């Protein structure tokens, strides 16, 4: 019985090891840089669309003009289970821009649900929320301001 149990444990361990070997290269392969974004306006050499992998001035990935209610829509390219989004702000200056900032997520239907908001300047903000199916992330501010970030990470 003990030998049989030992064999079973070894078999499960071996199978799981193969599982890890197979999924590991795909997990470490960069996916996020290919996430696409669109913005309500552009400034500082940025366009109104691009990818999160392309950094421009001051290491930013997007930069809207100063306008009323600016927004940036990020497409993570497929439905996924999300429970947090990490936003990295520029720290060289202008951390108070884009406030108050609302973070919303949506699935294919594009019916956005607010999952986080902040009125305080931040260097890095992890927006945690109950696990949900989503593909799109929208960052918006109701104020007349500028939206720019250095990084948007989707775990």
């Amino acid at each position, binding site marked *: *019985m003990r030998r*049989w149990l030992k064999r079973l444990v070894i078999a*499960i361990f071996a*199978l*799981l090891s*193969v*599982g*890890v*070997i*197979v*999924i590991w*290269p*795909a*997990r470490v*392969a960069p*996916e996020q840089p290919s996430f696409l974004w669109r913005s309500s306006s552009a400034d500082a050499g940025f366009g109104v669309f691009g990818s999160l992998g392309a950094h421009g001035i001051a290491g930013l990935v997007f930069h809207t003009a100063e306008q009323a209610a600016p927004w940036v829509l990020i497409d993570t*390219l*497929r*439905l*996924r*289970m*999300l*429970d*947090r989004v990490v936003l990295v702000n520029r720290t060289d200056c202008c951390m108070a821009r884009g406030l108050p900032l609302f973070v919303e997520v949506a699935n294919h239907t594009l019916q956005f*649900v607010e999952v986080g908001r902040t009125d305080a300047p931040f260097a890095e903000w992890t927006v945690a*929320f*109950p*696990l*949900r*199916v989503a593909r799109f992330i929208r960052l918006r501010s109701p104020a007349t301001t500028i939206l720019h970030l250095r990084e948007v990470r989707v*775990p």
Partner: protein
Amino acid sequence: MRRRVTQLLAVGPYVFVALSFVVSRLVYRLSFGVRFDATPVGFYIQYIDPFFMREDLWRSLLYLHHQAPLQNLLVALPLRHLPADQAFAVLDAIYVALGLATALGLVHLMLRLRASPLLASLGTVLYTLNPTTVLYETWLFYHLPVTCILLWSVIALWAFYQSGRARHGVACFGLIALAALFRSTLGPLFLGVLLALLVWLPPPWLPRVRSARLGVLRCAALPLLVLALNSVKPQLVLGYGYGEAMAWGNLVTKVYTELPPAEQRRLQREHLVSPAVGLFCLTDLAEFGTLRIPLTPTGVPLLDMERAPNRRWNAHALEYLWLTQRYYKPDALYLLKHYPEAYLHNVLRAVSAYAAAGTTDLMLPGTANYALLRPLFEPIDAQLGRAPDGRLLALAIALPLVAAFGFWRLLHREPHPRATRRERVVLTYMLLTIAYVTAVTTGVSFGDWSRYRYDIDPLYLTLGVLMLSDGARALRRVWQSVRPLPDAAS
């Protein structure tokens, strides 16, 4: 040296299958961008919302009334202890492991049943490389665990009849119970049928038939008890039968959708059926409008909450059971009584749809991997004679053919009586599993039938490879018998 060559030949098929599996999975992931799809957890009715998994798991599983508990438990355990991305990575690794276990189990079963090693390896590798297999393997749903467990239950049964050891018997019955705890379609009845078969034809190794039969019963006792408890659980804690909320609604849809629109309108106009017949039985409660039934809260979040905090509708609320009792059950009984031909027509349509490609499904086309793999499986399906409704000509011929071959092989006597009984029992179990899964899914479900066939595809494939192996052997015998004998003088 000779012994070493024999050993190498014995493990060759396993190594070939394992290597093909690993290489193909890396190619699918790195070249085609296939990723594990965990999104079903977020919106399929088979899952309780992650909120319940994290906040009230054990009570939610206790009150789960139309789904088997283990798939939810499998997802909930990593989700409760790890951040979501790590939890889904763990599940991803488990699903890859299950995929490999299925592939190795498949080749092992074929070899045990005396299939040609070459054909067994080729058949398994074709199954492994198939994009549809990859699609199911990267889909966080109960199909892959059930497929793998059912396959290994056949292997455990083989081992039980080879060794006569109780641990193999317990493993066989335990695996069947495990499959039934993943999928409500399989239940105590399924295990009971196998038990009856094994009691009728007990393993021949024990000295007396009576003690062998008692041994079989002893092996089955605990798994059967667990399954029976799971089945009576909703009756005990809620007062309603297991799976009622889904079964009656499915039966209503099966019959009602077969009726002509004019007849549907007449039934509604004359109040012979309720207005609920037009609604999917587990749809958002808000869609039931005035049909809704106000209930006193029970104190169990899973039963009381209409929606999870993320606004997703909770398909496990108690109100669904009440709606079933008030509307779907009487409607189903009325429709089955007055339109049995419509029900039969739907069942026949379902049986015919069993020959559809595994990708012909309502839910799969919504997944990201479906879009990625479509350029691969569509040309394959076209070669197999795909009809506009998704049925494949090749499968329409092959499935009944291999099932008929299974029956033929079952009745075909082999010279060794012990081998005969072992093979007869294993083949009977495989055919029973095919028949049971087909009968239950076509008899109750109103769609997605080819998806249900996925669970028993390895059994069909095993029979198919056995058929080819036996055919090749028969051809070789014919060839040897007609070959002219060498001239004695030369």
